[in-house]
């Protein structure tokens, strides 16, 4: 498998606090890659830097063979990087359908400024809403949705961007078990053309989904491997799992 994303010596510091410290990471085409680590390990920072929501202090990010370290976020999105947010991020005054439409706007062959084009985009948006289980809520205002549904909407918006790399920031946080089941089903159904980089605390989700896991600790990747390898790694146990009951992860 070839590498889709290569992060080299990436550093992000806020004043004297170093959130990410010369981190290296590669994400392969079609990967199912999870980032785990204790709070403050720099997971979200890394995700923000890859998506362009935040800019690095130093280091390099290459995506599909191009240096995107300083590229602006909307350019990266057009290049095929989509993301969800830790706090589900929607446009509250717009309807659910409009939210997805905004996600598809720059990623659809149809012209959104024309009524006919919008109709075609809206049809595709409905299909996406169906996959995430929001059918029937198209005309609700997004601000009125429950937390779980907002999270699914956030995901729908990301999917509408037809990504090659999908960045998910704790997609299962705050979800009910039923919602998590839906989420896993959606993720499982994703095409192999889409690589997924997932930040997650819920290790059940990680175990059920990820083929590769990287453990981040103090802003640096500690180890990368399969879920089983990670579970067996003593260094990881000490750095991360040691803080929790190991039994819970089984």
């Amino acid at each position, binding site marked *: 498998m070839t590498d889709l994303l290569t992060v080299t010596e990436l550093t992000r510091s806020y004043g004297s606090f170093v959130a990410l410290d010369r981190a290296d990471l590669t994400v392969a085409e079609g990967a199912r890659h999870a980032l785990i680590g204790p709070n403050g390990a720099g997971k979200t920072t890394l995700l923000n830097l890859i998506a362009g929501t935040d*800019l690095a202090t130093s280091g390099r990010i290459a995506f599909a063979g191009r*240096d995107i*370290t*300083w*590229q*602006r976020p909307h350019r990266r999105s057009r290049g095929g990087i989509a993301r969800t947010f830790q706090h589900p991020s929607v446009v509250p005054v717009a309807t659910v359908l409009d939210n997805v439409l905004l996600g598809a706007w720059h990623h659809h062959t149809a012209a959104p400024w024309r009524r006919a084009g919008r109709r075609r985009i809206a049809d595709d948006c409905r299909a996406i809403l169906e996959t995430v289980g929001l059918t029937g809520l198209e005309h609700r205002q997004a601000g009125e949705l429950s937390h779980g549904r907002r999270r699914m909407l956030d995901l729908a918006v990301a999917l509408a961007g037809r990504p090659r790399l999908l960045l998910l920031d704790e997609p299962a946080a705050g979800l009910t078990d039923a919602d998590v089941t839906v989420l896993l089903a959606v993720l499982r159904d994703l095409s192999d053309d889409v690589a997924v980089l997932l930040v997650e605390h819920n290790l059940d989700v990680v175990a059920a989904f990820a083929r590769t896991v990287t453990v981040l600790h103090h802003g640096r990747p500690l180890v990368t491997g399969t879920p089983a390898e990670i579970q067996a790694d003593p260094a990881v146990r000490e750095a991360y799992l040691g803080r929790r009951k190991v039994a819970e992860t089984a």
Partner: protein
Amino acid sequence: MDWLDAHLIPALDGVAYGMLLFVVAAGLTLAFGSGGVLNLAHGTVYAMGAYIAADIGDGSWGMLVLALAVGAAAGATSGGVLAVAVAPVARRGHLDQALLTFGIALVGGDMLVSYFGADQRQVAVPKALEDSVTIAGHQYPTYRLAFIGVAALLAGLGYWLLVRSTAGAAVRATTDDPEMVAALGLSPRVVHTATLVVAGALAGGAGVLGAPIITPSPETADTVMLWSLIIVVVGRLGSVLGALFAAIAVGEVQTLGVVLAPDLAPYLLFGAMGIALLVRSGSGILPEFAARARVLATRARALKGGGA
């Protein structure tokens, strides 16, 4: 040496003037920065203090102290009134607060001029402070020199109160997370009101102290309001040290700046403010320019590498 001599007084005056501006803006720093209330009536409260100084002051120390007490008390009262007035719109955002406090400023300004008259007022200061002293061969107003001391005291006290003391912690916490403060057994309402009352007292007191330098007149409120906004926003909301630095910077711009760049003098204040906001604004234009410069540099390097 000549150059230094020529610019010594403007430079010193920049500090003194900055200190004046800091004191002038202190009430707003507290009300807006820490209390979260965009108080556009701040200038009016200041003007009230200045008129009180003109009315009560007669050149004796006793009356100066009395004026200070009356001015601070009147300011505190107006702070209390403000707290009551903003309570119903507290959850409605800054624009509604602006509408409310601007309304109060207009009504208050009209009442001030009706009561104190429209004439510029003479402000008597104690004889010892009235004249000038000689510094390095130059004349400098004694009152301003004394003012630097008072302002430094106030800055120190304000820093200690707001940043180090428990009361300051309560004030900051009330703005950030009222529920948490309530959970600690403090009434956010009381803390908020107290903040505005102290802010009002600061504004009123500043008016009394500033009156001998900026003559009280119908335009005082507007001038002071504008300066205070600039200082509070440039100095980052609520930061005592930030406001102090911003005030001194504004002071220097208006003293040393107009001497060094006389042709630009009319543009200096707002030009400097704009640049300051851009430089220190996190979402400002500079980080992006820096990023773009880096892109160009990377490309240039790539081109060079490719050519070699």
